[in-house]
Structures are given as structure tokens and as C-alpha cells.
């Protein structure tokens, strides 16, 4: 294949080179808005009272705290798929943190951020993402996390008429076909703590996992305990929590808010969470929205 004529080819090449050069110039300095230039401190130690006032915070939209979560926003973490109502554990926590930082309720704006996109490279369109995201060392290499605001136990859900309905140990679930949601601690817990003989079924979201349980396509699903409470009490008739367990693989799993790597806001949010822990507010929010786990048997 040859190009039609030389002059034309030259013009074409020159035009292309010009476009490319333009592209380079246009694309070049995108550091100004994100923390790419100077490495910002990612832990809370250096945050001082002054740097955490609303005016001095580096926000996506100045004067507004932009908080992200996925869609749909599940109970009991949110309520009625509406993060803005302040109901549900994570909505309440987000507003409590916002208040500690000095934002009014009107100054908090919610945006939808799919979990899969939340850790994509580049600048974010949210200040932090709150979406039952477990803090793990592998993930912390790519994004920054706040300190944990909730420690989730894992729970196994079965149908009452299942042949696994009376199992009392994790080992008793070895032969079961187990399902869990992708990207969750529950999935890792199912794989590493139960170690079933057949591969764990991986679902896109809790809804799909629930449907598969109802259909008998899986024998059991693993979810964090508050989600399990909600599923068994309100969503799937004839299902029950078989028991709870703490995942032994790695560190105790905590949920943290997700930030763009190097976002200096982390320090201020950590301070707010710390204050909410000390004055008991976080505990009260947890009591209000997440059922207590005293009567759920431990699976050993």
C-alpha cells in the first residue's frame, strides 16, 4: 500500500504531527488539581486544626464536601437507596464526619461512583467514597484510606430447608456451593476461611447472590454481618444466618473511606473519625443502624 502522492502524504504527515504536538501540549499539565506534584502526606499525623477548616481544605468543589457511593446503595448501610437522607449507617457516618469538619448538611453533595471505577488512576470527582470498602494493604498502594469506621464480621446465610441449615462449623460447609459478591472481604473469607471443595461463585452484586440462593443455585452466601441481618430479616423469606466468623486470613477487616492517592483531606477525616470514636458518636450511629450481633452463633 502506498499513499496516493508524495505532497499529499507530506501534508498529511505534517498535519498529524501538528495534531500530536497539540495533544501533548493540551494534555501535559494536569497535575495542578491532583496530588501529583508534591507528594502530600497521606496519614493524619501532620494535619493541624487550621489546615482542616472548610476554607483551607482542598476539595473537588470548593465549599462543598463531595461524597461518593455506589448505586444501588444497599440497606442497612443506606436507606431507600438514597444517601442524602442521612439514614442508614454509612450515610449517617458521612454526615457526622462532614459536621465534624464544619460542613452543613446542605454543603454535602453525593455522587454515584461505581466500585470498579473508584480505584481507577487519575483525579477523582469526589472527596471521599464510602461504600463498605475493606482496607487492605494491596489496595492501599493505589488509593488512600481513612482509618476504619467499622469492623465487619462475616456471616453465612442459608435457606432454612437447606441440608446445611444445621451446620455449626466452617468445616461443615466444605462440600457446599458458596456464593459471594466480587471485590468483597466476604469473597476472600469464603475462599480462604471456608475453603470449599468447589469454586466459590462470584456475583456482581448482592442482589444476584440473593437470587442464586433463592433459586438453589448456591447453597449458602457469605456477606458481612449487618448485610446478612438485613437479607435474612427483610429480603429473603425462609433464610437464616447460620453463624458469624472473623476472617483469619490477614488483618482484621475494617471498612474505610477511599480517597485519591495523596489527597491531604485524609488527615482531616481521620481526625474527625477519631473524635467521633472518642465521644461515642460512632458507636451510637452503629447501634442505631446496624443490628447487634450478640445472638448470632460463632462458626469455628
Amino acid at each position, binding site marked *: 500500500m502506498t499513499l496516493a502522492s508524495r505532497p499529499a502524504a507530506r501534508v498529511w504527515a505534517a498535519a498529524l504531527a501538528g495534531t500530536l504536538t497539540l495533544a501533548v501540549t493540551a494534555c501535559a499539565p494536569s497535575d495542578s488539581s491532583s496530588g501529583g506534584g508534591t507528594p502530600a502526606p497521606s496519614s493524619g499525623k501532620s494535619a493541624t486544626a487550621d489546615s482542616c477548616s472548610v476554607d483551607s481544605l482542598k476539595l473537588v468543589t470548593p465549599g462543598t464536601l463531595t461524597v461518593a457511593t455506589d448505586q444501588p446503595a444497599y440497606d442497612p448501610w443506606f436507606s431507600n437507596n438514597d444517601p442524602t437522607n442521612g439514614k442508614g449507617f454509612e450515610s449517617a457516618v458521612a454526615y457526622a464526619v462532614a459536621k465534624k469538619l464544619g460542613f452543613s448538611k446542605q454543603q454535602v453533595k453525593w455522587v454515584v461512583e461505581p466500585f470498579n471505577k473508584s480505584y481507577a488512576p*487519575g483525579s477523582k470527582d469526589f472527596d471521599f467514597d464510602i461504600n463498605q470498602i475493606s482496607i487492605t494493604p494491596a489496595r492501599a498502594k493505589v488509593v488512600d484510606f481513612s482509618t476504619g469506621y467499622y469492623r465487619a464480621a462475616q456471616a453465612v446465610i442459608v435457606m432454612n430447608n437447606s441440608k446445611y441449615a444445621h451446620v455449626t462449623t466452617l468445616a461443615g460447609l466444605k462440600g457446599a456451593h458458596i456464593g459471594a459478591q*466480587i471485590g468483597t472481604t466476604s469473597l476472600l473469607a469464603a475462599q480462604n476461611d471456608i475453603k470449599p471443595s468447589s469454586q466459590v461463585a462470584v456475583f456482581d452484586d448482592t442482589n444476584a447472590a440473593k437470587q442464586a440462593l433463592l433459586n438453589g443455585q448456591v447453597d449458602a452466601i457469605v456477606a458481612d454481618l449487618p448485610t446478612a441481618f438485613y437479607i435474612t430479616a427483610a429480603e429473603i423469606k425462609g433464610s437464616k444466618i447460620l453463624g458469624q466468623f472473623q476472617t483469619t486470613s490477614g488483618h482484621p477487616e475494617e471498612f474505610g473511606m477511599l480517597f485519591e492517592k495523596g489527597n491531604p483531606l485524609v488527615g482531616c477525616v481521620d481526625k474527625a473519625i477519631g473524635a467521633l470514636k472518642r465521644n461515642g458518636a460512632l458507636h451510637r450511629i452503629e447501634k442505631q443502624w446496624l443490628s447487634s450481633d450478640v445472638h448470632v452463633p460463632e462458626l469455628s
Partner: protein
Amino acid sequence: MAALSTVVVLTLLVLVTVSSPGWPRVKETFFSWPEAKASFPAIARGFLVNIKLFMIAEPLILVIGLLVALARGTRTAVMFPLRALAVVYVDLFRGVPTLLLVYLVGFGLPALQLRGIPVDTFKLGLIALTLSYGAYVAEVIRAGIESIHPDQRAAARSLGLSAGQTTRSVVLPQALRRVAPPLLNDFVSLQKDTALVAALGLTPAEALREANVYTAEHFNYTPLLVAAVFFIALTIPLARFTDWLGNRALARQHSAGPA
């Protein structure tokens, strides 16, 4: 000149990409060699599931597509219900997004709790893909059948062949040869769409789901590219084969054209 300009353009493109401020981050999240190596075995294992899915689905699809195309081609009044059924099937299943069909068949059918309906996600996914692609392939084959000039059918009938014999020995051989490239095109499309069955929590999981699991756990997208390489390794040779088939048909037609 072509080679030179290609080299210049490619070099410029690479330079622009590599010198951009975000490149180290993009390289780490999309092109990480350690992550690619770590995720490779699971994705390779998963790809066997994709292969199994489309190898079983494709023959079923061709059979359904052919039957539906033939049903639509019937002319007699008695056959009207069959004809109508074929039209409704194609309209419905070609019009619905394949993922929706996967959900509907995969989660909806077992929820009916009828005897004899499989619960196994592999079989359900297979049914969904077959129903969806059967509709597409039916239309491709119908187009092939209709491209055969009516005179040929008339000639065959005048030689004493029955309607069935005419379809079987005169119309179909020519029609199918003519639509081989678009059929292969749909086959390539099917290979990629086997990934949709993952939505049912397919176990063992297919390649893209294995990649996604790794990605969500490590916040690194490299495994998705690894999965892409697997798919491409299969579809590119098939695409070249389709090109070759098309060119061969074209060459034959030209050589057989009017002098």
C-alpha cells in the same frame, strides 16, 4: 513512504503516551508485569470455560438459526403459525440485550421451580447465548437464502426436484457459502459474549470474571488486559480467516463474471 510514515506516527504516539505525566501511574495500573504474571493462571483456567461455552453453543446456534430461517422462508398458508413464531422469536430475542437475556434465563427460569429446568448456571448461560445468537444467525442465513435468484429454484423444480430437495441441494449450499463471512463474524462476537454468563456467578468462573476478581482485590486493571490478550489471540486469526474466505469468494465471482 508508507513504512516511514507509519513508523513516525507510531513513534510519536508512543512518545506522547510515555511522556505524559500520568504514564507511570497508568503503566502500573494497566501494564504491570508482576500483576499480569500473578493473575495469568486463573485467567487461563477461566478461558477454558469460555472455549467450552462457545464450542457447545455455536453448533446449537447454527441449527436453530437454520431452522428459524427455513421456517421464515415457508410460503404455504398452513405454515403461517410456524412463520409467525419464527418472526416473533427473531424480533424478541434479537431486540433484547444479551446480558438481560442471560439474567432472565439464568435467574428467571430456575425461579419458576418447574421440574426439568436446569439450575446449573453453565447450562442456563448456554441456553441464553444460544437463544440470543440463534436469532441473529437466523437472519443472516435468511439473507443468504433470499440472495439466491428465484430462477434457480424454478429451474430446479422444472427438473423434477421437490421443494425440499430444491432447498437442500440447490438453495442452501449456495446460500450458506455466501453468508460464511457474516456467520464467522457472529461467531467472533459470540466468543466475546461468553463473558456475559459470568453475571450468573458461573463456576468455575470464566476468564473475564477471574480477571475482575483479581482486579477488585488488588485495585489493578492489568488482569483485564491479560484476559483481552486471550480473547484477541483467538479472534484475530479467525478474522483473518474470514477475510481470506471473503476474498476467495470475491475472486471466484470475478473470474466467473461476464466475459
